[in-house]
């Protein structure tokens, strides 16, 4: 029997919980899953890497055999299909899903708004490649279109590097990153650069449990683990220098009025700038494996909502 997981028509961080709920419900009895994206109208980088993480988690028996892979119906809208292809989604999805629908053969990337197509991150070498590529492609856009000081490009690469390293060091599996610039009409009416990182690994709670759960006692859970990592800068390693990465990302985002949100398990934490009305911490969300990170850096200038 195959269970259906509907991909939201507008698939981004706001609709992700709806998707996670459908995924959790369908994935309960280890049946084969069908991710239905045929009606998708738009997906953010967060939606795309999140869908890949779901595909990774839905693989039955941990094998790569065709019968163990979940199914995916591709979007039918040609423009949506074209964007998902340019964004590098299908190149990665081909390994995870049995894809149904017509998928263009066009190569990924080389589109001005896709600063980094969906890229797998499995090891430190991948982080080097990502950082090198983003510096070549993003400098001009960060400076000319977002009005960031050219010096901020290096900070952007640092933030991206640390976000990717979270996967390498903590997930226990591979994940994906994507970076895109776009005009964010809904919220800011200005351009933003978005970094989305997702994995279907062990998540923050599991990663931090051996060193942190006693300290939190009854409060220990996904929300406490996210709070410990992002707000208190703790790490699963006892080395006193650990935990620098997320702290560094926070400093960078404070300086450039950016936002970070991390979802892991059943909780989501965010450092919320003035221009956004997101809540700092949400618990009791539908469970979803691993961790999903969203970083948004807005065009500089007035960011009044």
């Amino acid at each position, binding site marked *: 029997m195959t269970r259906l997981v509907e991909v939201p028509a507008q698939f981004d961080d706001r609709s992700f919980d709806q998707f996670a709920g459908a995924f959790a419900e369908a994935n309960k009895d280890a049946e084969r899953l069908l991710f239905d994206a045929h009606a998708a109208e738009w997906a953010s980088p967060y939606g795309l890497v999140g869908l890949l993480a779901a595909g990774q988690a839905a693989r039955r028996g941990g094998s790569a055999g065709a019968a163990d892979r979940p199914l995916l119906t591709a979007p039918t809208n040609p423009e949506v299909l074209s964007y998902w292809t340019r964004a590098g989604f299908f190149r990665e999805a081909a390994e995870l899903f049995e894809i149904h629908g017509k998928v263009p053969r066009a190569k990924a990337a080389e589109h001005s708004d896709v600063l980094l197509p969906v890229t797998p991150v499995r090891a*430190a070498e991948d982080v*080097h490649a990502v950082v090198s590529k983003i510096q070549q492609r993003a400098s001009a856009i960060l400076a000319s279109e977002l009005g960031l000081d050219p010096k901020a490009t*290096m900070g952007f690469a640092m933030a991206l590097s640390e976000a990717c390293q979270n996967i390498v060091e903590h997930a226990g599996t591979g994940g994906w990153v994507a970076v895109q610039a776009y005009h964010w009409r809904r919220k800011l009416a200005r351009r933003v650069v978005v970094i989305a990182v997702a994995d279907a690994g062990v998540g923050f709670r599991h990663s931090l449990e051996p060193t942190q759960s006693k300290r939190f006692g009854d409060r220990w859970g996904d929300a406490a683990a996210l709070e410990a990592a992002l707000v208190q800068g703790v790490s699963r390693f006892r080395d006193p220098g650990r935990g620098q*990465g997320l702290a560094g990302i926070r400093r960078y985002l404070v300086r450039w009025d950016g936002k970070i949100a991390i979802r892991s398990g059943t909780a989501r934490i965010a450092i919320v700038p003035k221009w956004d009305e997101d809540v700092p911490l949400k618990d009791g969300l539908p469970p979803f494996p691993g961790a999903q990170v969203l970083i948004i850096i807005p065009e500089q200038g007035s960011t009044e909502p």
Partner: protein
Amino acid sequence: MIQYIDMHAVLQQSVSSLYTDLVTRPTGRVVRERIEQAIAGLGGAGGPDGAGEMTIARIDFAGVGCIDYSCADEIVAKLLRDRPAVLVLSGISEGHREAIEPVLTGHGLAALIERADGTLDVLGAKGAAAVLLDELVARRCAARRPGGTYALTLA
């Protein structure tokens, strides 16, 4: 004697000649171990346990693209944490400084930056930086210049 370290060259020997960025902990670890070998090869660090005479290493960052916080911690902070050493960083950009400074401050450590004109600037925890400069002057490794700036006296 001052040990000269070309960070860009060490990075390319350690990881790949394709990359110019100091990112990730594994990269930082390999780069630090190479620097430690170079220091030990000159008899620095005073012995296998790192105790004894102070090591002075001049680390040139010219040609290094980005350094992230993890690498800054793994290289700069650990070189200072694990032995009595003075690190004099040259070829430092604003971006490098942004990564290294908070890491050193968080550990209560300090390093020196050598500007293009040879004058020294401090990086990291203020208290540790003051002690570092005093010690260098006391050892006659650095001297105060007219105008209140400091410079190394050793080549």
